[in-house]
Protein backbone atom coordinates (compact mmCIF):
# COMPACT_ATOMS: atom_id res chain seq x y z
CA UNK A 1 0.00 0.00 0.00
CA UNK A 2 1.33 3.34 -0.99
CA UNK A 3 0.85 6.42 1.04
CA UNK A 4 -0.61 9.15 -1.05
CA UNK A 5 0.80 12.64 -0.80
CA UNK A 6 -1.40 15.60 -0.12
CA UNK A 7 -1.93 17.80 -3.10
CA UNK A 8 1.30 19.46 -3.92
CA UNK A 9 1.88 21.70 -6.83
CA UNK A 10 5.16 20.27 -7.96
CA UNK A 11 5.98 16.61 -8.26
CA UNK A 12 8.93 15.62 -6.17
CA UNK A 13 11.65 14.47 -8.43
CA UNK A 14 11.11 11.00 -9.70
CA UNK A 15 7.72 10.43 -8.14
CA UNK A 16 4.33 11.27 -9.46
CA UNK A 17 1.99 11.61 -6.51
CA UNK A 18 -1.30 9.89 -6.74
CA UNK A 19 -0.06 6.90 -8.64
CA UNK A 20 1.49 3.71 -7.47
CA UNK A 21 5.20 3.91 -7.67
CA UNK A 22 6.57 1.79 -10.49
CA UNK A 23 6.68 2.65 -13.90
CA UNK A 24 5.87 2.15 -17.34
CA UNK A 25 2.65 0.27 -17.69
CA UNK A 26 1.08 0.26 -21.13
CA UNK A 27 -1.69 2.32 -19.62
CA UNK A 28 0.69 5.05 -18.62
CA UNK A 29 2.48 5.05 -21.93
CA UNK A 30 -0.83 5.45 -23.68
CA UNK A 31 -1.83 8.22 -21.30
CA UNK A 32 1.39 10.11 -21.90
CA UNK A 33 1.02 9.63 -25.62
CA UNK A 34 -2.45 11.16 -25.48
CA UNK A 35 -1.22 14.07 -23.45
CA UNK A 36 1.69 14.73 -25.75
CA UNK A 37 -0.53 14.53 -28.81
CA UNK A 38 -2.89 17.09 -27.33
CA UNK A 39 -0.03 19.39 -26.43
CA UNK A 40 1.42 19.10 -29.92
CA UNK A 41 -1.82 20.02 -31.63
CA UNK A 42 -2.28 22.84 -29.16
CA UNK A 43 1.14 24.34 -29.70
CA UNK A 44 1.85 23.82 -33.39
CA UNK A 45 -0.35 26.74 -34.51
CA UNK A 46 1.63 29.02 -32.24
CA UNK A 47 4.80 27.99 -33.95
CA UNK A 48 3.05 28.63 -37.26
CA UNK A 49 2.06 32.10 -36.08
CA UNK A 50 5.67 32.84 -35.21
CA UNK A 51 6.93 31.48 -38.48
CA UNK A 52 4.45 33.57 -40.44
CA UNK A 53 5.13 36.66 -38.37
CA UNK A 54 8.80 36.45 -39.25
CA UNK A 55 8.11 36.10 -42.97
CA UNK A 56 7.91 38.63 -45.71
CA UNK A 57 4.34 39.24 -46.77
CA UNK A 58 5.05 39.67 -50.45
CA UNK A 59 6.71 36.27 -50.84
CA UNK A 60 4.89 34.36 -48.13
CA UNK A 61 2.81 32.22 -50.46
CA UNK A 62 5.73 31.07 -52.57
CA UNK A 63 6.85 28.55 -49.97
CA UNK A 64 3.68 27.39 -48.29
CA UNK A 65 5.13 24.06 -47.28
CA UNK A 66 8.30 25.31 -45.66
CA UNK A 67 8.50 25.12 -41.90
CA UNK A 68 10.86 28.03 -41.72
CA UNK A 69 10.02 31.69 -42.15
CA UNK A 70 9.98 32.84 -45.77
CA UNK A 71 12.49 35.65 -46.34
CA UNK A 72 13.15 36.17 -42.65
CA UNK A 73 12.35 39.70 -41.57
CA UNK A 74 11.39 41.61 -38.46
CA UNK A 75 9.20 43.88 -40.58
CA UNK A 76 5.91 42.56 -39.25
CA UNK A 77 6.79 43.26 -35.65
CA UNK A 78 7.99 46.71 -36.59
CA UNK A 79 4.67 47.39 -38.29
CA UNK A 80 2.76 46.24 -35.27
CA UNK A 81 4.71 48.36 -32.84
CA UNK A 82 4.33 51.38 -35.10
CA UNK A 83 8.02 51.53 -35.92
CA UNK A 84 7.79 51.06 -39.66
CA UNK A 85 7.46 53.87 -42.15
CA UNK A 86 4.75 53.82 -44.79
CA UNK A 87 7.16 52.77 -47.54
CA UNK A 88 8.70 50.01 -45.46
CA UNK A 89 5.27 48.72 -44.58
CA UNK A 90 3.92 48.71 -48.11
CA UNK A 91 7.10 47.19 -49.49
CA UNK A 92 6.50 44.09 -47.42
CA UNK A 93 2.81 43.82 -48.13
CA UNK A 94 1.56 45.78 -45.16
CA UNK A 95 -1.17 48.32 -45.43
CA UNK A 96 0.65 51.30 -44.11
CA UNK A 97 -2.17 52.28 -41.81
CA UNK A 98 -0.99 53.78 -38.58
CA UNK A 99 -0.85 51.54 -35.54
CA UNK A 100 -0.81 53.36 -32.20
CA UNK A 101 0.23 50.21 -30.43
CA UNK A 102 0.87 51.60 -26.97
CA UNK A 103 -2.43 53.44 -26.91
CA UNK A 104 -4.33 50.30 -27.85
CA UNK A 105 -2.40 48.31 -25.25
CA UNK A 106 -3.25 50.79 -22.55
CA UNK A 107 -6.90 50.70 -23.53
CA UNK A 108 -7.04 46.93 -23.44
CA UNK A 109 -5.37 46.77 -20.05
CA UNK A 110 -7.61 49.40 -18.48
CA UNK A 111 -10.85 48.10 -19.91
CA UNK A 112 -10.14 44.48 -19.06
CA UNK A 113 -9.00 45.33 -15.55
CA UNK A 114 -12.12 47.37 -14.84
CA UNK A 115 -14.45 44.75 -16.21
CA UNK A 116 -12.76 41.93 -14.32
CA UNK A 117 -12.74 43.78 -11.04
CA UNK A 118 -16.44 44.52 -11.28
CA UNK A 119 -17.47 41.10 -12.47
CA UNK A 120 -15.53 39.18 -9.86
CA UNK A 121 -16.45 41.37 -6.93
CA UNK A 122 -20.14 41.70 -7.65
CA UNK A 123 -20.33 38.15 -8.93
CA UNK A 124 -18.87 36.72 -5.76
CA UNK A 125 -21.29 38.69 -3.61
CA UNK A 126 -24.25 37.53 -5.62
CA UNK A 127 -23.05 33.94 -5.85
CA UNK A 128 -22.77 33.74 -2.10
CA UNK A 129 -26.28 35.08 -1.69
CA UNK A 130 -27.60 32.45 -4.04
CA UNK A 131 -25.59 29.61 -2.60
CA UNK A 132 -25.84 30.16 1.10
CA UNK A 133 -28.52 32.62 2.04
CA UNK A 134 -32.18 31.87 2.21
CA UNK A 135 -34.59 34.43 0.96
CA UNK A 136 -37.90 34.41 -0.89
CA UNK A 137 -37.65 33.96 -4.61
CA UNK A 138 -33.98 33.03 -4.46
CA UNK A 139 -34.11 30.16 -6.91
CA UNK A 140 -36.47 31.95 -9.24
CA UNK A 141 -34.25 34.99 -9.43
CA UNK A 142 -31.21 32.79 -10.00
CA UNK A 143 -32.91 31.08 -12.87
CA UNK A 144 -33.91 34.40 -14.39
CA UNK A 145 -30.33 35.63 -14.11
CA UNK A 146 -29.20 32.47 -15.84
CA UNK A 147 -31.36 33.29 -18.79
CA UNK A 148 -28.98 36.14 -19.41
CA UNK A 149 -26.61 33.43 -20.58
CA UNK A 150 -29.07 32.46 -23.28
CA UNK A 151 -29.46 35.88 -24.71
CA UNK A 152 -27.69 35.95 -28.06
CA UNK A 153 -25.18 38.80 -27.79
CA UNK A 154 -26.25 40.12 -31.19
CA UNK A 155 -29.70 40.65 -29.77
CA UNK A 156 -28.63 43.04 -27.06
CA UNK A 157 -25.80 44.72 -28.92
CA UNK A 158 -27.90 47.16 -30.85
CA UNK A 159 -30.26 48.25 -28.06
CA UNK A 160 -27.27 48.60 -25.73
CA UNK A 161 -25.56 50.61 -28.43
CA UNK A 162 -28.57 52.90 -28.67
CA UNK A 163 -28.54 53.25 -24.89
CA UNK A 164 -24.89 54.31 -24.94
CA UNK A 165 -25.61 56.75 -27.71
CA UNK A 166 -28.50 58.28 -25.82
CA UNK A 167 -26.36 58.61 -22.72
CA UNK A 168 -23.67 60.28 -24.79
CA UNK A 169 -21.15 57.64 -23.78
CA UNK A 170 -20.09 56.40 -27.18
CA UNK A 171 -16.34 56.05 -27.63
CA UNK A 172 -15.60 56.27 -23.91
CA UNK A 173 -14.26 53.72 -21.48
CA UNK A 174 -17.65 53.74 -19.79
CA UNK A 175 -19.37 52.36 -22.87
CA UNK A 176 -16.80 49.60 -23.21
CA UNK A 177 -16.99 48.60 -19.56
CA UNK A 178 -20.53 49.18 -18.31
CA UNK A 179 -22.52 46.37 -19.92
CA UNK A 180 -20.12 43.82 -18.47
CA UNK A 181 -19.14 45.52 -15.26
CA UNK A 182 -22.03 44.68 -13.02
CA UNK A 183 -22.73 41.17 -13.93
CA UNK A 184 -21.85 38.28 -16.07
CA UNK A 185 -24.01 35.21 -15.66
CA UNK A 186 -20.98 32.99 -15.96
CA UNK A 187 -19.26 34.48 -12.90
CA UNK A 188 -22.34 34.10 -10.74
CA UNK A 189 -22.96 30.57 -11.92
CA UNK A 190 -19.35 29.52 -11.58
CA UNK A 191 -18.83 30.84 -8.07
CA UNK A 192 -22.18 29.62 -6.88
CA UNK A 193 -21.24 26.09 -7.84
CA UNK A 194 -18.04 26.40 -5.85
CA UNK A 195 -19.72 27.97 -2.85
CA UNK A 196 -22.25 25.16 -2.90
CA UNK A 197 -19.38 22.75 -2.52
CA UNK A 198 -18.04 24.35 0.61
CA UNK A 199 -19.04 22.40 3.66
CA UNK A 200 -21.59 24.05 5.87
CA UNK A 201 -19.81 23.21 9.07
CA UNK A 202 -17.39 26.04 8.59
CA UNK A 203 -20.15 28.57 8.25
CA UNK A 204 -22.06 27.16 11.13
CA UNK A 205 -18.97 27.46 13.25
CA UNK A 206 -18.68 31.09 12.25
CA UNK A 207 -22.34 31.69 12.98
CA UNK A 208 -21.90 30.26 16.46
CA UNK A 209 -19.09 32.73 16.94
CA UNK A 210 -21.58 35.47 16.20
CA UNK A 211 -20.45 36.46 12.74
CA UNK A 212 -23.06 37.80 10.36
CA UNK A 213 -23.20 37.07 6.66
CA UNK A 214 -21.00 39.94 5.69
CA UNK A 215 -18.22 38.96 8.05
CA UNK A 216 -18.52 35.30 7.20
CA UNK A 217 -18.27 36.15 3.57
CA UNK A 218 -15.26 38.40 3.66
CA UNK A 219 -13.33 36.75 6.44
CA UNK A 220 -13.93 33.11 5.75
CA UNK A 221 -15.52 32.25 2.45
CA UNK A 222 -13.42 34.50 0.27
CA UNK A 223 -10.03 33.42 1.60
CA UNK A 224 -11.18 29.83 1.29
CA UNK A 225 -12.26 30.27 -2.30
CA UNK A 226 -9.21 32.13 -3.39
CA UNK A 227 -8.45 29.49 -5.99
CA UNK A 228 -11.73 29.62 -7.87
CA UNK A 229 -11.91 33.38 -7.50
CA UNK A 230 -8.48 33.94 -8.96
CA UNK A 231 -9.18 31.43 -11.68
CA UNK A 232 -12.37 33.25 -12.52
CA UNK A 233 -10.60 36.60 -12.51
CA UNK A 234 -7.98 35.35 -14.91
CA UNK A 235 -10.52 33.75 -17.22
CA UNK A 236 -12.69 36.83 -17.26
CA UNK A 237 -9.70 39.07 -17.85
CA UNK A 238 -8.76 37.02 -20.86
CA UNK A 239 -12.33 36.98 -22.07
CA UNK A 240 -12.73 40.73 -21.89
CA UNK A 241 -9.29 41.17 -23.43
CA UNK A 242 -10.45 39.23 -26.45
CA UNK A 243 -13.87 40.81 -26.66
CA UNK A 244 -14.36 41.89 -30.21
CA UNK A 245 -17.76 42.89 -31.50
CA UNK A 246 -18.89 45.13 -28.69
CA UNK A 247 -15.71 47.24 -28.62
CA UNK A 248 -15.93 47.41 -32.40
CA UNK A 249 -19.40 48.89 -32.08
CA UNK A 250 -18.84 51.42 -29.34
CA UNK A 251 -15.11 51.95 -29.23
CA UNK A 252 -13.84 52.41 -32.78
CA UNK A 253 -12.23 55.73 -32.15
CA UNK A 254 -8.49 55.60 -31.81
CA UNK A 255 -8.38 56.90 -28.26
CA UNK A 256 -10.42 54.03 -26.85
CA UNK A 257 -9.72 51.31 -29.36
CA UNK A 258 -8.57 48.04 -27.84
CA UNK A 259 -5.87 45.76 -29.24
CA UNK A 260 -8.30 43.15 -30.46
CA UNK A 261 -10.28 45.67 -32.48
CA UNK A 262 -7.07 47.17 -33.77
CA UNK A 263 -6.20 43.80 -35.30
CA UNK A 264 -8.69 44.75 -37.97
CA UNK A 265 -6.13 47.04 -39.48
CA UNK A 266 -4.31 44.00 -40.81
CA UNK A 267 -7.29 42.64 -42.64
CA UNK A 268 -8.37 43.38 -46.16
CA UNK A 269 -8.26 47.06 -46.99
CA UNK A 270 -9.65 46.79 -50.50
CA UNK A 271 -12.32 44.54 -51.99
CA UNK A 272 -10.71 41.14 -52.64
CA UNK A 273 -7.46 42.62 -51.47
CA UNK A 274 -5.15 40.49 -49.41
CA UNK A 275 -4.56 40.27 -45.70
CA UNK A 276 -1.30 41.33 -44.19
CA UNK A 277 -0.62 37.85 -42.78
CA UNK A 278 2.74 38.53 -41.15
CA UNK A 279 1.38 41.72 -39.63
CA UNK A 280 -1.71 39.98 -38.29
CA UNK A 281 0.26 37.11 -36.81
CA UNK A 282 2.80 39.42 -35.24
CA UNK A 283 0.00 41.55 -33.82
CA UNK A 284 -1.69 38.49 -32.37
CA UNK A 285 1.46 37.33 -30.66
CA UNK A 286 2.08 40.76 -29.28
CA UNK A 287 -1.54 41.12 -28.16
CA UNK A 288 -1.45 37.78 -26.39
CA UNK A 289 1.78 38.57 -24.59
CA UNK A 290 0.36 40.64 -21.70
CA UNK A 291 -2.18 38.00 -20.80
CA UNK A 292 0.42 35.31 -21.12
CA UNK A 293 2.68 37.17 -18.70
CA UNK A 294 -0.24 37.62 -16.34
CA UNK A 295 -0.89 33.94 -16.44
CA UNK A 296 2.73 33.08 -15.85
CA UNK A 297 2.79 35.38 -12.85
CA UNK A 298 -0.39 34.15 -11.26
CA UNK A 299 -0.72 30.70 -12.70
CA UNK A 300 1.25 28.98 -10.01
CA UNK A 301 -0.69 30.65 -7.28
CA UNK A 302 -3.96 29.60 -8.83
CA UNK A 303 -2.89 26.05 -9.16
CA UNK A 304 -1.56 25.93 -5.62
CA UNK A 305 -4.66 27.36 -4.08
CA UNK A 306 -7.14 25.38 -6.13
CA UNK A 307 -5.77 22.37 -4.38
CA UNK A 308 -6.72 23.64 -0.99
CA UNK A 309 -10.07 25.25 -1.55
CA UNK A 310 -12.94 23.61 0.19
CA UNK A 311 -10.98 20.65 1.40
CA UNK A 312 -11.73 19.76 4.93
Amino acid at each position, binding site marked *: *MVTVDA*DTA*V*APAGRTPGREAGGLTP*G*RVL*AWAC*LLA*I*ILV*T*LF*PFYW*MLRTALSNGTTL*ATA*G*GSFLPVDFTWGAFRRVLGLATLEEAQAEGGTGSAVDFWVYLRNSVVVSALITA*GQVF*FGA*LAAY*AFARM*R*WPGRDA*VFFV*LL*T*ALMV*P*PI*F*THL*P*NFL*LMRDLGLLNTYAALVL*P*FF*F*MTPFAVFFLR*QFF*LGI*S*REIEEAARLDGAG*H*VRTFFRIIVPMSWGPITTLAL*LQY*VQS*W*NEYFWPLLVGSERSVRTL*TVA*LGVFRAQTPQGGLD*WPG*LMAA*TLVAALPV*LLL*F*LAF*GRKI*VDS*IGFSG*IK
Partner: protein
Amino acid sequence: MTTAAVPATGATAGGPGGAHATARRARTRRETWVALGFTLPTIFGFVVFYLWPSVRGLGLSFTDYRFFSDTSFVGLANYQRLLADETFWNAMAVTVWYVVLNIGFQTVLAVLLAVLLHRLTRSVVIRGLVLMPYLVANVVVALLWFWMLDAQIGIVNEMLSWFGIGPISFFGSESWAIPTIAFVNTWRHLGYTALLIFAGLVMIPRTLYEAGRVDGASEWQMFWRITLPLLRPVLALVLVVTVVGSFQVFDTVAVTTMGGPADASRVIQYHIFDLAFERLDYGYASAVSVVLLVILSVIAFVQLRLMRAGESDLG
Protein backbone atom coordinates in the same frame (compact mmCIF):
# COMPACT_ATOMS: atom_id res chain seq x y z
CA MET B 1 -46.09 34.88 28.88
CA THR B 2 -48.09 32.91 26.57
CA THR B 3 -46.23 29.83 25.66
CA ALA B 4 -48.21 29.85 22.47
CA ALA B 5 -48.69 26.13 22.41
CA VAL B 6 -51.57 26.89 20.18
CA PRO B 7 -50.24 28.85 17.22
CA ALA B 8 -51.99 32.07 16.40
CA THR B 9 -54.24 31.72 13.41
CA GLY B 10 -52.14 31.50 10.30
CA ALA B 11 -49.46 33.72 11.69
CA THR B 12 -46.61 31.28 12.04
CA ALA B 13 -45.53 28.72 9.52
CA GLY B 14 -46.09 25.79 11.78
CA GLY B 15 -43.29 26.58 14.15
CA PRO B 16 -43.41 25.45 17.69
CA GLY B 17 -43.39 28.75 19.55
CA GLY B 18 -44.69 32.19 18.73
CA ALA B 19 -41.63 33.90 20.12
CA HIS B 20 -39.30 31.66 18.16
CA ALA B 21 -41.36 32.12 15.06
CA THR B 22 -41.19 35.87 15.30
CA ALA B 23 -37.48 35.74 15.87
CA ARG B 24 -37.09 33.51 12.85
CA ARG B 25 -39.17 35.79 10.71
CA ALA B 26 -37.09 38.70 11.83
CA ARG B 27 -33.96 36.76 10.98
CA THR B 28 -35.41 35.85 7.60
CA ARG B 29 -36.26 39.47 6.92
CA ARG B 30 -32.77 40.55 7.92
CA GLU B 31 -31.34 37.85 5.77
CA THR B 32 -33.45 39.06 2.88
CA TRP B 33 -32.12 42.57 3.27
CA VAL B 34 -28.55 41.34 3.41
CA ALA B 35 -29.15 39.15 0.39
CA LEU B 36 -30.58 42.13 -1.44
CA GLY B 37 -27.46 44.10 -0.65
CA PHE B 38 -25.30 41.29 -1.93
CA THR B 39 -27.19 40.86 -5.16
CA LEU B 40 -28.18 44.42 -5.97
CA PRO B 41 -25.34 45.29 -8.36
CA THR B 42 -25.82 42.05 -10.24
CA ILE B 43 -29.54 42.58 -10.55
CA PHE B 44 -28.98 46.15 -11.64
CA GLY B 45 -26.58 45.03 -14.35
CA PHE B 46 -28.97 42.35 -15.44
CA VAL B 47 -31.96 44.65 -15.69
CA VAL B 48 -30.23 47.50 -17.45
CA PHE B 49 -27.98 45.61 -19.85
CA TYR B 50 -29.75 42.33 -20.45
CA LEU B 51 -33.41 42.64 -19.60
CA TRP B 52 -34.15 46.10 -20.94
CA PRO B 53 -32.37 45.61 -24.28
CA SER B 54 -34.06 42.23 -24.66
CA VAL B 55 -37.42 43.79 -24.06
CA ARG B 56 -36.61 46.52 -26.50
CA GLY B 57 -35.49 43.93 -28.99
CA LEU B 58 -38.70 42.02 -28.37
CA GLY B 59 -40.64 45.16 -29.14
CA LEU B 60 -38.70 45.66 -32.34
CA SER B 61 -39.49 42.12 -33.41
CA PHE B 62 -43.11 43.16 -33.82
CA THR B 63 -42.17 45.89 -36.25
CA ASP B 64 -40.63 46.12 -39.69
CA TYR B 65 -37.78 48.29 -38.50
CA ARG B 66 -35.19 48.64 -41.22
CA PHE B 67 -33.03 51.51 -40.02
CA PHE B 68 -34.13 55.01 -40.96
CA SER B 69 -37.11 54.10 -43.05
CA ASP B 70 -40.61 54.48 -41.67
CA THR B 71 -41.26 51.82 -39.09
CA SER B 72 -44.66 50.34 -38.47
CA PHE B 73 -46.10 47.77 -36.17
CA VAL B 74 -46.66 44.48 -37.97
CA GLY B 75 -47.78 42.22 -35.17
CA LEU B 76 -46.80 38.61 -35.61
CA ALA B 77 -45.88 38.92 -39.29
CA ASN B 78 -42.18 38.41 -38.61
CA TYR B 79 -42.87 35.25 -36.68
CA GLN B 80 -45.10 33.90 -39.40
CA ARG B 81 -42.40 34.61 -41.92
CA LEU B 82 -39.94 32.81 -39.68
CA LEU B 83 -41.97 29.63 -39.59
CA ALA B 84 -42.05 29.48 -43.37
CA ASP B 85 -38.44 30.55 -43.86
CA GLU B 86 -36.35 27.65 -45.14
CA THR B 87 -33.08 29.42 -44.44
CA PHE B 88 -34.07 29.78 -40.81
CA TRP B 89 -34.83 26.08 -40.36
CA ASN B 90 -31.66 25.19 -42.20
CA ALA B 91 -29.75 27.49 -39.87
CA MET B 92 -31.27 25.78 -36.84
CA ALA B 93 -30.38 22.35 -38.20
CA VAL B 94 -26.83 23.45 -38.98
CA THR B 95 -26.45 24.93 -35.51
CA VAL B 96 -27.75 21.84 -33.76
CA TRP B 97 -25.37 19.65 -35.74
CA TYR B 98 -22.53 21.98 -34.82
CA VAL B 99 -23.45 21.92 -31.13
CA VAL B 100 -23.61 18.15 -31.04
CA LEU B 101 -20.21 17.81 -32.70
CA ASN B 102 -18.56 20.55 -30.73
CA ILE B 103 -19.86 19.60 -27.30
CA GLY B 104 -19.34 15.92 -27.82
CA PHE B 105 -15.80 16.34 -28.98
CA GLN B 106 -14.89 19.10 -26.56
CA THR B 107 -16.39 17.62 -23.40
CA VAL B 108 -14.92 14.18 -23.89
CA LEU B 109 -11.50 15.62 -24.66
CA ALA B 110 -11.71 18.10 -21.80
CA VAL B 111 -12.54 15.43 -19.24
CA LEU B 112 -9.76 13.26 -20.64
CA LEU B 113 -7.30 16.12 -20.48
CA ALA B 114 -8.34 17.16 -16.98
CA VAL B 115 -7.93 13.61 -15.72
CA LEU B 116 -4.56 13.32 -17.43
CA LEU B 117 -3.46 16.57 -15.85
CA HIS B 118 -4.71 15.47 -12.52
CA ARG B 119 -3.37 11.96 -12.41
CA LEU B 120 -0.36 11.98 -14.63
CA THR B 121 1.61 15.05 -13.85
CA ARG B 122 1.58 18.00 -11.54
CA SER B 123 3.41 20.26 -13.91
CA VAL B 124 2.16 23.82 -13.93
CA VAL B 125 3.96 24.36 -17.19
CA ILE B 126 1.82 21.82 -18.99
CA ARG B 127 -1.29 23.28 -17.48
CA GLY B 128 -0.28 26.67 -18.76
CA LEU B 129 0.52 25.33 -22.21
CA VAL B 130 -2.92 23.86 -22.76
CA LEU B 131 -4.52 27.15 -21.80
CA MET B 132 -2.57 29.14 -24.34
CA PRO B 133 -5.10 28.93 -27.19
CA TYR B 134 -7.60 30.68 -25.00
CA LEU B 135 -5.35 33.70 -24.83
CA VAL B 136 -5.76 34.35 -28.53
CA ALA B 137 -8.80 36.29 -29.72
CA ASN B 138 -11.51 34.21 -31.35
CA VAL B 139 -11.33 36.02 -34.66
CA VAL B 140 -7.61 35.50 -34.92
CA VAL B 141 -7.87 31.81 -34.07
CA ALA B 142 -10.38 31.55 -36.87
CA LEU B 143 -8.12 33.35 -39.35
CA LEU B 144 -5.11 31.32 -38.30
CA TRP B 145 -6.81 28.00 -38.87
CA PHE B 146 -8.34 29.34 -42.05
CA TRP B 147 -4.81 29.88 -43.27
CA MET B 148 -3.41 26.58 -41.98
CA LEU B 149 -6.28 24.49 -43.30
CA ASP B 150 -6.41 26.15 -46.69
CA ALA B 151 -7.11 23.63 -49.40
CA GLN B 152 -4.46 24.83 -51.79
CA ILE B 153 -1.61 26.38 -49.84
CA GLY B 154 -2.28 25.44 -46.25
CA ILE B 155 0.29 23.57 -44.20
CA VAL B 156 -2.12 20.90 -42.99
CA ASN B 157 -2.99 19.77 -46.49
CA GLU B 158 0.70 19.91 -47.29
CA MET B 159 1.39 17.50 -44.44
CA LEU B 160 -1.52 15.30 -45.47
CA SER B 161 -0.07 15.05 -48.95
CA TRP B 162 3.03 13.40 -47.46
CA PHE B 163 0.74 10.52 -46.56
CA GLY B 164 -0.88 10.57 -49.96
CA ILE B 165 -4.16 11.99 -48.70
CA GLY B 166 -5.63 14.30 -51.31
CA PRO B 167 -6.34 17.94 -50.55
CA ILE B 168 -9.29 18.26 -48.22
CA SER B 169 -11.31 21.44 -48.51
CA PHE B 170 -11.81 21.85 -44.79
CA PHE B 171 -13.75 25.05 -45.02
CA GLY B 172 -14.97 24.71 -48.57
CA SER B 173 -16.65 21.35 -48.59
CA GLU B 174 -20.22 21.19 -47.42
CA SER B 175 -19.64 18.10 -45.34
CA TRP B 176 -16.40 19.29 -43.77
CA ALA B 177 -17.33 22.88 -43.00
CA ILE B 178 -19.17 22.39 -39.73
CA PRO B 179 -16.86 19.72 -38.33
CA THR B 180 -13.92 21.99 -39.12
CA ILE B 181 -15.47 24.94 -37.36
CA ALA B 182 -16.24 22.66 -34.42
CA PHE B 183 -12.62 21.59 -34.36
CA VAL B 184 -11.34 25.16 -34.43
CA ASN B 185 -13.55 26.16 -31.54
CA THR B 186 -12.60 23.06 -29.60
CA TRP B 187 -8.94 23.86 -30.14
CA ARG B 188 -9.42 27.24 -28.59
CA HIS B 189 -11.60 26.21 -25.68
CA LEU B 190 -10.16 22.83 -24.74
CA GLY B 191 -7.69 24.14 -22.20
CA TYR B 192 -10.25 26.44 -20.66
CA THR B 193 -12.86 23.73 -20.30
CA ALA B 194 -10.29 21.28 -19.01
CA LEU B 195 -9.16 23.79 -16.42
CA LEU B 196 -12.69 24.22 -15.15
CA ILE B 197 -13.16 20.50 -14.84
CA PHE B 198 -9.74 20.20 -13.28
CA ALA B 199 -10.75 22.66 -10.58
CA GLY B 200 -13.67 20.39 -9.82
CA LEU B 201 -11.48 17.29 -9.82
CA VAL B 202 -9.20 18.81 -7.27
CA MET B 203 -12.04 19.36 -4.88
CA ILE B 204 -12.71 15.66 -4.63
CA PRO B 205 -11.08 14.52 -1.41
CA ARG B 206 -8.19 12.18 -1.89
CA THR B 207 -9.40 9.99 0.92
CA LEU B 208 -12.10 8.68 -1.36
CA TYR B 209 -9.54 7.48 -3.85
CA GLU B 210 -7.48 5.94 -1.11
CA ALA B 211 -10.48 4.06 0.12
CA GLY B 212 -11.21 2.95 -3.39
CA ARG B 213 -7.73 1.65 -3.86
CA VAL B 214 -7.90 -0.22 -0.60
CA ASP B 215 -11.03 -1.90 -1.91
CA GLY B 216 -9.09 -2.96 -4.97
CA ALA B 217 -10.81 -0.76 -7.51
CA SER B 218 -9.02 -0.03 -10.80
CA GLU B 219 -8.42 3.44 -12.24
CA TRP B 220 -11.24 3.00 -14.66
CA GLN B 221 -13.69 1.89 -11.98
CA MET B 222 -12.72 4.74 -9.71
CA PHE B 223 -13.27 7.16 -12.54
CA TRP B 224 -16.80 5.97 -13.16
CA ARG B 225 -17.80 5.43 -9.54
CA ILE B 226 -16.09 8.27 -7.75
CA THR B 227 -14.84 10.94 -10.12
CA LEU B 228 -17.75 11.37 -12.48
CA PRO B 229 -20.55 11.45 -9.92
CA LEU B 230 -18.69 13.92 -7.73
CA LEU B 231 -17.91 16.08 -10.71
CA ARG B 232 -21.57 16.61 -11.27
CA PRO B 233 -21.94 20.26 -10.22
CA VAL B 234 -18.87 21.27 -12.17
CA LEU B 235 -19.83 19.20 -15.19
CA ALA B 236 -23.28 20.72 -15.07
CA LEU B 237 -21.78 24.16 -15.10
CA VAL B 238 -19.42 23.30 -17.90
CA LEU B 239 -22.08 21.65 -20.01
CA VAL B 240 -24.64 24.39 -19.63
CA VAL B 241 -22.11 27.09 -20.39
CA THR B 242 -20.53 25.29 -23.32
CA VAL B 243 -23.83 24.20 -24.86
CA VAL B 244 -25.26 27.69 -24.66
CA GLY B 245 -22.00 29.15 -25.89
CA SER B 246 -21.92 26.67 -28.75
CA PHE B 247 -25.36 27.68 -29.90
CA GLN B 248 -24.07 31.20 -30.12
CA VAL B 249 -21.08 30.43 -32.32
CA PHE B 250 -20.48 33.37 -34.57
CA ASP B 251 -16.95 34.75 -34.74
CA THR B 252 -15.42 31.77 -36.47
CA VAL B 253 -18.12 31.60 -39.13
CA ALA B 254 -18.14 35.35 -39.74
CA VAL B 255 -14.44 35.39 -40.40
CA THR B 256 -14.05 32.18 -42.41
CA THR B 257 -16.93 30.69 -44.31
CA MET B 258 -19.47 33.47 -43.91
CA GLY B 259 -22.25 30.94 -43.92
CA GLY B 260 -21.05 29.03 -46.94
CA PRO B 261 -20.56 26.91 -48.83
CA ALA B 262 -24.15 27.06 -49.96
CA ASP B 263 -25.38 27.78 -46.44
CA ALA B 264 -23.74 24.65 -45.04
CA SER B 265 -22.27 26.64 -42.18
CA ARG B 266 -24.91 29.32 -41.87
CA VAL B 267 -25.39 29.06 -38.14
CA ILE B 268 -28.28 30.83 -36.51
CA GLN B 269 -26.35 33.69 -34.97
CA TYR B 270 -24.64 34.40 -38.27
CA HIS B 271 -28.02 34.39 -39.94
CA ILE B 272 -29.24 36.96 -37.43
CA PHE B 273 -26.18 39.11 -38.01
CA ASP B 274 -26.57 38.91 -41.77
CA LEU B 275 -30.24 39.87 -41.56
CA ALA B 276 -29.61 42.72 -39.18
CA PHE B 277 -26.44 44.34 -40.41
CA GLU B 278 -26.06 43.28 -44.03
CA ARG B 279 -29.63 43.18 -45.22
CA LEU B 280 -30.70 45.78 -42.67
CA ASP B 281 -33.82 43.77 -41.89
CA TYR B 282 -33.65 44.46 -38.19
CA GLY B 283 -37.25 43.77 -37.20
CA TYR B 284 -37.11 40.27 -38.62
CA ALA B 285 -33.66 39.67 -37.15
CA SER B 286 -35.04 40.56 -33.73
CA ALA B 287 -37.79 38.01 -34.14
CA VAL B 288 -35.28 35.30 -34.96
CA SER B 289 -33.25 36.32 -31.92
CA VAL B 290 -36.26 36.01 -29.67
CA VAL B 291 -36.93 32.52 -30.93
CA LEU B 292 -33.30 31.58 -30.36
CA LEU B 293 -33.46 32.97 -26.85
CA VAL B 294 -36.54 30.90 -26.05
CA ILE B 295 -34.98 27.74 -27.43
CA LEU B 296 -31.80 28.24 -25.44
CA SER B 297 -33.70 28.88 -22.24
CA VAL B 298 -35.65 25.68 -22.64
CA ILE B 299 -32.50 23.69 -23.32
CA ALA B 300 -30.66 25.13 -20.35
CA PHE B 301 -33.61 24.57 -18.08
CA VAL B 302 -33.90 20.96 -19.12
CA GLN B 303 -30.18 20.46 -18.70
CA LEU B 304 -30.12 21.90 -15.22
CA ARG B 305 -33.04 19.81 -14.15
CA LEU B 306 -31.53 16.65 -15.55
CA MET B 307 -28.25 17.20 -13.86
CA ARG B 308 -29.69 18.42 -10.60
CA ALA B 309 -27.04 21.07 -10.66
CA GLY B 310 -28.26 22.78 -7.55
CA GLU B 311 -27.17 19.97 -5.35
CA SER B 312 -23.76 18.76 -4.50
CA ASP B 313 -22.89 15.29 -3.34
CA LEU B 314 -20.10 16.60 -1.22
CA GLY B 315 -22.50 18.05 1.28
